[in-house]
């Protein structure tokens, strides 16, 4: 490395990031449809909800117009409608709902690990957005 080169700086992981990674790695050991999996989800959910309830951030002004929210509402309704269609159509391997489609992924440890990481990271982000 020449004298002018600056080593790449990596943002340090915070305690919460590390905790989320460790928790996800452990929780992903629990297979879906088991009591340990339910406990793993409910424990993390309760912890983040408790954190969110304690958090005090000054209220922020509303930052999106109704016109900006509308496309997301439409997409959410379409997703719910399509999921309902799949469920009423059969909800089996030939007519899979979203959860059935994701089952092969979530049946593997790496798939569950990614799932837990995404879910916990979203929850952590939601905590940082809490206002009163």
């Amino acid at each position, binding site marked *: 490395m020449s004298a002018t080169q600056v080593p790449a700086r990596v943002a340090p992981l915070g305690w919460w990031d590390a905790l989320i990674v460790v928790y996800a790695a452990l*929780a992903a050991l629990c297979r879906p449809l088991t009591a340990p999996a339910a406990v793993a989800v409910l424990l993390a959910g309760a912890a983040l909800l408790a954190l*969110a309830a304690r958090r005090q951030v000054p*209220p922020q002004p509303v930052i999106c117009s109704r016109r*900006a*929210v509308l496309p997301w509402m439409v*997409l959410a309704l379409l997703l719910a409608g399509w999921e309902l269609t799949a469920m009423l159509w059969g909800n089996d391997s030939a007519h899979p709902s979203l959860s059935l489609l994701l089952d092969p992924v979530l049946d593997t440890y790496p798939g569950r690990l990614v799932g837990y990481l995404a879910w916990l990271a*979203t929850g952590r982000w939601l905590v940082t957005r809490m206002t009163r």
Partner: protein
Amino acid sequence: MTPYVVILVGFAGLLAAALVVDVLGRAGREPLRPLARVLETAMTWRAGRWMVWGAWLWIGFHFLAR
């Protein structure tokens, strides 16, 4: 085209549409906004917070535990 493919294409299309709306919102295309900004707005009022946290909990329980 089998029902499986029809359903799969539907979900993939919705995911693609969400990505397009999010990317356009990040690029500043009016009136679109990214999903994160819309969620932040929803969480500025009490019922919105309940809905967002409820959806988050449901997603975790439904897909990871059930």
